């Protein structure tokens, strides 16, 4: 047998080297993490989980259900208020990390994945508005189509096409956003939580 390692061996060893279980699931955190400003990342994820769960229920039951039944109204409201909280928590998380310059200590990729997640969330929220199937969504769609045409992307994304917005909202964007969030959290675990600026170092 050749001494050259199999690709599975290389992947396993590389993965274990980069993603040590103690880093991924720590049982201790630095003292400076004991502040309310550090909880908004996980609060955002909690709201995201609620969004996925309520969104799955809305997906299976459909617009006629969420417009006409009391239980449908309830889950529609859960989805709405989850996204309100999702953005509130994410904005506080963003402000907190911005003012503590959280990209220090070679954490720039953590920051970038957060920025991309933020913009992906806005697009997801927008497509969500488009598929409410009410007068509000019609108004938003007719206004948005002019914006898209003016920047030259109207041929690829038609805000008036509810089916297109529906599929993007329930399949493409949640998967992309979920993947980005997982990547973001893994980077936080690998690099550790950024210390306050006044603490000195950047590690």
């Amino acid at each position, binding site marked *: 047998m050749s001494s050259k390692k199999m690709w599975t061996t290389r992947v396993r060893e590389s993965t274990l080297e980069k993603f040590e279980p103690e880093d991924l699931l720590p049982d*201790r955190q630095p*003292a400076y993490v004991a*502040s*309310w*400003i550090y909880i908004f990342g996980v609060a955002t994820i909690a709201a995201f989980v609620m969004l996925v769960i309520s969104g799955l229920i809305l997906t299976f039951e459909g617009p006629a259900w969420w417009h006409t039944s009391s239980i449908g109204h309830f889950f529609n409201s859960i989805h709405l208020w989850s996204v*309100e909280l999702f953005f*509130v928590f994410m904005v*506080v998380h963003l402000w*907190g990390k911005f003012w503590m310059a959280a990209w220090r200590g070679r954490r720039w990729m953590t920051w970038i994945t957060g920025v991309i997640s933020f913009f992906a969330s806005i697009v997801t929220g927008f497509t969500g508005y488009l598929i409410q199937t009410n007068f509000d969504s019609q108004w938003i769609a007719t206004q948005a189509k002019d914006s898209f045409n003016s920047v030259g992307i109207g041929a690829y994304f038609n805000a008036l096409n509810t089916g297109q917005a529906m599929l993007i909202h329930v399949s493409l964007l949640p998967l992309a956003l979920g993947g980005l969030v997982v990547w973001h959290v893994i980077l936080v675990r690998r690099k550790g939580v950024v210390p306050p600026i006044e603490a000195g170092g950047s590690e």
Partner: protein
Amino acid sequence: MNLLSIDLNHPAHYLTAGPISVSYGNLVMIGLVIVLFVVALVLPFPSHDDDERS
């Protein structure tokens, strides 16, 4: 119960100052987020004196 509900069946009220125009609903949300941010910075976090969190 009706006393607790808010009638949304009308166009939003807007605050306009020059080029800036924002609905009162959005203004309230922006204010809440700012308040939440400040509270998160100043409110003491419950801590464990022995610092044993295992």
